[in-house]
């Protein structure tokens, strides 16, 4: 279980939970990002923020701070290395 903000570019994961109280999360749910959904962190913007995430065949931008509340389970068969543990 890691916050989405700590995924590495190219890494896949499965959404475990989000925070429906937040406007961002409500918007993402409307777009179909619901618990159980597979997603991929496609890239970070050149300045490190925001992130581009892909799910359900669409690519959407999301700020690092907003990705904090999205908890993902990094898929076991994921080809990329696991993220560094949180300091």
């Amino acid at each position: 279980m890691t916050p989405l903000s700590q995924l590495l570019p190219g890494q896949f994961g499965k959404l475990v939970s989000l925070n429906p109280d937040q406007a961002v999360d409500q918007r993402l749910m409307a777009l179909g990002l619901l618990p159980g959904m597979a997603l991929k962190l496609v890239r970070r913007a050149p300045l490190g923020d925001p992130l581009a995430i892909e799910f359900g065949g669409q690519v959407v931008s999301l700020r690092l701070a907003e990705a904090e509340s999205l908890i993902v389970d990094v898929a076991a068969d994921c080809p990329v290395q696991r993220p560094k543990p949180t300091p």
Partner: protein
Amino acid sequence: MSSKEIYVALVGNPNTGKSTLFNALTGLRQKVGNYPGVTVARKSGRCDCGDGLKVELVDLPGLYSLAAASPDEQVVTDVLLGSLEGSQQPDAIVVVLDATNLLRNLFLASQLAELNLPMALVLNQADIAHEQGLKIDTQLLSQRLGGVPVVLTSAWKGEGISLVRRAIAEVLNKKSKMTRLTWPGQVESALGAIVQAIQADTGKAPSSADAQRILFSSNAHTSNRLGWLNVQRDSIVRQARDQVRAAGYNPLAAEPLIHYAHLRKVLEGVIAGGTGKQGNAAALDRVLLHRVMGPILFIGIMLGLFASVFWLAKFPMQWIQAGVDFLKSVIAPALVSTPMLQSLVTDGIIAGVGAFLVFLPQILILFLFVGILEDSGYMARAAFIMDRLFSWCGLNGKSFVPLLSGFACAIPGLLSTRTIEDPKARLATAFAVPFMSCSARFPIYALMCAAFIGPLYGPGWESVVMVGMHCVGLIFAVPTAFVLTRFVLKVKPQPFVLELPRYQMPKPRDVIWRMWQNAAEFISKAGTVIFAITIIIWALCYFPRDTQMSDRIKAAEPTLSEHELQARTQAAMIEQSWMGRFGKAVQPVFDPCGFDWKITVGVLASFPAREVIVSTLGVTYSIGKGAEADSQHLRTAMQEAKWMDGPRKSTPIFSLAAVLALMVFFALCSQCGPTIATLAQETGGWKWAAISFFYMTILAWVMAVVVYQSVIRFT
């Protein structure tokens, strides 16, 4: 729209092709572009649906969910609920869906079904779906959704348009409605409780869609609209939400969870194939959003854009100027018997409106490029790249498009702030837009650079100053936005959820229409106001009239040539006109900026429209009518101008310090009537327009003083 007419609304997610379909159905031209949020207000047109059936079709801004967040999304819910003054609910709605992303698009459709209106589904962008190898069983989908018409179209190619016409006729005829989902028992009873409570309090049962908004959304729009203001309201809603929670759902997540679960079942077996390949986006993004290449390309594109706007616009601008001069030279002799009318027409109307039309080429070209960037899909990436630079000061990546447009003209820039969800971030962006160096500021920079910077310091410095002046506004806009959002509006960091659309070849037809419509907005909004104010300014500079002026000057200096006499008379006339007297009275205010009374008159006359400065300087520096930025006479007259009295006696008025101060003043000052009016309209009142006016004007004065006083000490 008369109340008898049948009317149908086009609704759907952003960027699905609603406007493209609207254009195909009505033969009208609504703005289209590959960027979520192109349509920001409703537009209507007439659509022929066969057999003499004519309906009023309304194109609406795109939205992802009925839980409206941004003002353009609010427009949609207002229209669909018929809650606007003097409007009714549509007779039917046509939901436009992106065929390549049906599940997400159906979420909105499923919410719309709760409105219980006759409905048809249009699965658009079928060509792309086909390219991706997707096969969609429209019959099965229609069947699963309770028999609503479902048609497959490629609106841009004009394929399937007649099917849409037929579908509209069919829904209007059969009133077919999309099947609503069955809510889990406890959710259903929670909704029932809200309906009952409202009926008991207001005497009117709300629609089930309204009850859902109250139960599922955290804002109070809906209850307020229904006039449900009971003090018990919050506790009733809380109780209902507890019921939802008992069913195992977070109340704020229940709606998407239940809809999506339902829709997954609806779509089972409907879609076949699909290679899953996302087309070109991934490969192009790897370069255009690359950590190093991305910003380099971005800066290159922006520099190229501005360079070409100024180079390409130069030629048509010269032609327009020549046309205006020609018109004056033709009309002036015809009116020679009525000097006042002659002056009104040539100095007032033609000069004023001409000075304004001269910017049209720049605006057209800038919007041509903006259109190309937008339709290609790059603009959303630009917003993605720029977000970090904007977010710290409370704006976001979506502020980028309004600010970029502001470099052509603030008005279309202000209109495009409507896509920003948060009202405060939107206000901050709108506040920053008039700081951008619009094309009306260009002539004064050009005049000052050509007359003073170029001759004194060479063409290298001339271009440095030119570029520098275009950055001044930006440099002040960013901290302004920061202070505004952080300390005045206290904006929380705003979400930035922007869909990155696929890349495509820009479609010339769409881009050119887009460009033209932005220009038309500019002309119609600004043209009328400009027309009125040019006449007012003209009158202030013309009256009162001293008919003996010319004779007196001749008597005092009999050696003057005819041309000199005329010029001197004009200068003397303006000196004793209302404007001249006012300028002299106000000059002490501008004295610390190094402006003499003539510049002061120019500054004052430019408040309604800043481009007036050049022609006003032309009159006050007595080189006669028809001054232009590249007029040699005006340059010489200004270069030779000296202070007549005071401590600076016989030093040049246009010292380096004064020249820079004047340009900085124009870079920052709020001198545009139409912008103020648009700002008031877009921020819902005169308060922010007034704040913007005073803030920018005072800032301009302060910075002009700072520049003048510090430069004069170093030179």
